Structures are given as structure tokens and as C-alpha cells.
């Protein structure tokens, strides 16, 4: 099948959805003429004009506000926040408006926005261009957080997100943009709220999304040599996540590793560890291991950054620890 880059897959989803539904429009800094900082919105402005592709000023709060208000009327805004670190600038609109509007107005309106944003480290850009802020969004009922790890999923999940009635924060790990993979040409949706077993196995379950998923799959290959069988699950939707798939897997393997790139304390894996402890207590033969970043900001120096962030080695070692427990 045809190969596309992750960023091209996202771009194709946008093209196809804008073609399919004229209520879909795109806004963000430099998404028009320039096609986006990472090229994800290329060609849209030329094809659909400035009504449907808005180059905004540096006004993250207003960009989200505009998106929410337009969504309230039934439009389908896709708003690009250039780096995920900048959601701090529009956090109120996400938390107090997008996530709550449907509930507080008793279902009278929905906020079907998609906030696309580039997260993650490894880009050598330090504190304000490297964070993985999914944990900030985990304690906010009403929000959906989606995070693809391959070009195929990037296209299918973005398509589903645009079509969803829910407000969605869509993370694009910036170190994945140039990865390649098979992507069908026709448009398609992948289910939201559903995890994907990327590799079946029997000995240890590894939950890993985005960049971490690659490490987990690599570790699975490596450990096969030692006849250890990993089950690798990509949650795909981080919030609300698919408990069933996780529970089924842990019921089988009795061992769980959660890998995530954000700081360990209070991160994504905390909830999974807490939940599995609670609901799968009798199944666990070892404590749930979290492989994550040091509890530190992301320093500029590549040497320090690589030390702070979890890589393949850390994932592999974390898995071994759980096996050896």
C-alpha cells in the first residue's frame, strides 16, 4: 500500500474532511499561506480560501473561543495550537467552556472542536516547546484526548475526531511527523474511546502511546528472542480510555507496564496504575511499573534532555523489572 508520512496523513484527513463537509474549517497561526509550522495544513488555503482557513494572530484564547462559539452553531472548527505547551494560554476555554458547555446547558449545544497540537520532547527546544501535557487534561470530565502513533492512525483518528460531537484535544507527537507508514487513500474513521492491541502476547502488558509505542514494539521484538511475549496496547484515546481492553489484557498477563513521556509523578500512567490496582488487584503478580520522564522540566541540552526523557532503554528495562519481580 501507499506510504505516507505522519504529517501527510494528517494533511490528507483535513483535505478529505473539508471536501466532505463544508462546515469544517481550520484556524491557527500560519496554517494558511505557509501550511502550518509542521506542514500539516498544506494546500488547504489555496484550495478552500481564507474563509475556511484562517491565519490567526498569536491569540490562543481567542482562537479557542472562536472555535467554541462556531462549534456551538454546528460548525466544525479544527484549531491548531502550534505547540502543546501553549494550551496553557487557552486552558480556560478548554476546561471551562469546551468541556462543560454540553453539560451545563443541559445538552442544548455541543462543542465539536478539534484542537490539534504538537507535543513531546526530543526536538531540542526545551521548556516551552517540549511538554506532554495530557495529564493536565485527565481530570476534566467532558474532554476527549486523542493521540495517534502511526500515519494510519493519524489519518483515521483525526477523521473520527472531526466527525465527533465531542470537544477533542488531538496530540501530534512532533518526533512522529516525519515517520512513514501505509495509509489508505479513501477516507476512514478509527473508533474513538477504543484502545488497539498492537501486538498480542501473554507475559506482560505494555501500555504505550505516541512515541512510546514504537519503543514498546521494539522491546517486544527484542524480548521475543528471550521467549518473552509482550502484549502492546496503544490506548489511542487517552481520555476517556478504554478500560476493558486494558483489563482483559492484564487478566491474561498479570503484569503491566505503562510508558509515557511526561514526568512520572501525576502523569497519565498514574491513573492507569491506580485503576488497575483497584479493579484488577487479584490479577497482578507484580506492581504496575511506570516508565516515564524524570520529575523535571525538559532541559535544553540534548544530553540532559535525553537523560530526562524516557527512551527505548528505559522502556526495555522497565519491562524486565516487571518480569523479574
Amino acid at each position: 500500500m501507499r506510504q505516507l508520512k505522519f504529517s501527510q496523513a494528517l494533511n490528507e484527513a483535513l483535505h478529505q474532511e473539508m471536501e466532505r463537509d463544508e462546515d469544517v474549517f481550520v484556524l491557527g497561526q500560519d496554517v494558511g499561506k505557509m501550511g502550518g509550522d509542521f506542514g500539516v495544513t498544506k494546500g488547504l488555503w489555496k484550495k478552500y480560501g481564507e474563509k475556511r482557513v484562517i491565519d490567526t494572530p498569536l491569540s490562543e484564547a481567542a482562537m479557542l473561543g472562536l472555535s467554541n462559539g462556531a462549534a456551538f452553531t454546528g460548525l466544525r472548527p479544527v484549531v491548531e495550537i502550534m505547540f502543546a505547551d501553549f494550551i496553557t494560554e487557552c486552558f480556560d476555554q478548554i476546561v471551562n467552556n469546551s468541556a462543560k458547555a454540553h453539560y451545563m446547558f443541559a445538552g442544548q449545544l455541543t462543542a465539536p472542536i478539534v484542537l490539534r497540537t504538537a507535543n513531546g520532547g526530543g526536538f531540542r527546544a526545551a521548556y516551552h516547546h517540549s511538554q506532554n501535557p495530557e495529564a493536565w487534561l485527565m481530570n476534566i470530565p467532558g474532554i476527549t484526548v486523542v493521540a495517534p502513533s502511526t500515519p494510519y492512525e493519524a489519518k483515521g483518528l483525526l477523521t473520527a475526531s472531526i466527525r465527533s460531537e465531542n470537544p477533542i484535544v488531538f496530540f501530534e507527537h512532533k518526533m512522529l511527523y516525519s515517520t512513514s507508514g501505509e495509509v489508505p487513500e479513501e477516507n476512514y474513521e478509527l473508533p474513538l474511546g477504543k484502545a488497539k492491541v498492537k501486538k498480542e502476547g501473554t507475559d506482560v502488558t505494555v501500555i504505550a502511546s505516541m512515541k512510546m509505542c514504537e519503543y514498546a514494539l521494539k522491546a517486544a521484538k527484542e524480548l521475543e528472542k528471550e521467549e518473552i511475549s509482550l502484549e502492546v496496547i496503544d490506548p489511542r484515546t487517552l481520555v476517556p480510555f478504554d478500560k476493558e481492553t486494558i483489563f482483559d489484557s492484564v487478566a491474561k498477563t498479570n503484569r503491566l507496564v505503562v510508558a509515557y513521556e511526561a514526568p512520572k509523578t501525576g502523569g497519565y500512567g498514574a491513573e492507569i496504575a491506580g485503576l488497575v490496582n483497584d479493579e484488577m488487584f487479584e490479577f497482578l503478580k507484580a506492581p504496575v511499573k511506570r516508565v516515564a520522564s524524570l520529575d523535571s522540566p525538559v532541559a535544553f541540552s540534548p544530553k540532559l534532555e535525553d537523560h530526562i526523557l524516557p527512551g527505548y532503554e528505559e522502556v526495555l528495562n522497565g519491562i524486565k523489572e516487571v518480569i523479574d519481580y
Partner: protein
Amino acid sequence: MGLNVDKLKQMYYHMNLIRRFEEKVDEHSKKGDIPGFIHLSIGQEACQTGVMHVLTENDYKFPDHRSHGICLLSGSSKEKVMAEIFAKKTGLCEGKGGSMHIADVEVGNMGNNAIEGSITATSLGTAYASKYRDEDNVTAVFIGDGTCGRGELHESMNMAANLKVPLIYILVNNGYAISTRAEEAHSFPEHLSDRAAGYDMPSEVVDGNDVKKVYNAMERAVNRARNGEGPSMIELLTYRWQGHFSGDPASYRPGNEVEKWKEEKCPIKNLRSKLENKGVQAGTLDKLEEDALKEVEEMVEFALNSPEPDLEDATKYIYAEKYESMKEGE
């Protein structure tokens, strides 16, 4: 569209309706029938009435926290407005919203939001939607003088003017943000709304206690917006007679400031004398006042007699669309 006597009489009725509504809400808030805290608009009825008479149910409205009058005049079932404030199942938002989060999307009330100023950002979106769909409805967003401190207002005005969307900022300047006077915490030349010029946006300052002036200024702004000439700001100078919320002693206000506003600038008295000058009988006006009271009393009855929400609805509406993996109730 001029303001003939009939229209003015209707406005007179509406201003009385808001006044009575707020008085009753104050009473029942203090009695404990109404939960939470409540912001009243007594003294500001001309702002709400003048503005709302220009708008239709097709226009998008974003009321602020001092919202009851706006909700009442949007075209909603008025008893459902009251029931919402009483946290009843029969309220516009099934008792989930309350005074600070009332929407009635059917009539273009897009809901208020208790994070002051955030609606200035949200309202960009409905205004953009009108432009997007080439419809001629406009969006009106209400803010107070204190809310002018918020960064979102700046972002909104800059984008609104750049995108030339049909958005009208109704700056209801009642002189105070809770205890803080506008000039104590802000810096501006003569008026807060002079800042609109920095966005190349027209603005006007009018007496917010003169319903005709409010109406006319709003009409000009709406006409500009409907003609594709973009956003504007109108600043309505007014005063709230009560404290910031029902029960606030408001001891931060100097001497006889309230009394002066009550005596010299009551928007209802003001309109009444205008109508009397135009030859409307005192009896006719008295009758309007009585009718307003009666209508409000019926709303209170309705609210008091309505049931509370059902417990099983507590987790309804969290997600607009449920994912397959979600269990019931989530």
C-alpha cells in the same frame, strides 16, 4: 425603525418586568429558596431593555453574570428562566446551570459563563459563523467595566475587527467591579471604550439609563454589523443599586452615591415621565407595572412548585456522543 409610543410602552413594561423579577429573586435568594449567589441588575434595566429590543431571536446573545434581564427578553419561556435560577428541573437548563449559566439556544441565548470575559472570546465564534454562512444575524456580547481588564477582550477585539465579523460589545459600565472603581484599577483616556479606536473599531458612549439612547446606539451598531461593516463597541454608563451580589452590603460605596442615582437617574422613572409627556395616561402605566408584577409572581409560583432535578440526570450530558467503550451513565 423609530421608537413610537407603543414600542416605548412595551419597553416600559419590560423594564418593570426586570425590576420586579430582580426584586423577587433578591427576596427568594435571601430566604434561601435560591441556591448560590445572585447578581442583580436593578438600576440597569434600560441597558438590557434597549439592547434587547434591537435584537431578534435569530441573533446570538451572550449574557454576562448579571444576566436575568437579558434572558427574560430573549424570547425564552420566562418561567423557565426563573425555574433555572431556582435550580429546578423545569428550568431552561434543567437546573444544572443556574443564574450564571443559562442558555436557551432556540432563541439565540448562547449562555453566560462565570469566568468573566471568556464570552468575549466565545462570541467571536458565533459572529464568525454568521459570516461563514452569509447570514445577516449579529452577535451581542455583554461585559462589565471590570471585565475590560481581561486579556481575552483584547484578543477578541483584535480578531473581530480583523475578520470584520458582526459582533457588538455591550460594555455595561456601572462604575464598579465588585468594590473596585474602574479608574482605580484601569488606565484609559476618557472612556474605557476609547480603546476600540486602537483596533480601528467604532465605539460610542451613551447614557445607559436612557432606554431610547441605548436603543438608538445599539441600532446603529447592529446596522453596521448587518451591513458587513464589522464589530463595534457601545459603552453604557449606568449604576447598580444593589451590591455586587444579593446580600452584599456594598459598604465600599461613598456617601449618598446610591441615593443620587436612585433619585436622579432611575431609568424607569425617566421613561415614565417621557411617556407621560407624550400623553400616556398614568393609569395605563400603572397597569403595565401591575401586569409586570403579576407576571413575575406567576414565574415564582411556577419555580417554587417545580420539582428538583432527578438524581439519575446527574451524569447526563457529560459527553455529547458516547464511545462504545463507555459504560451506561458515563
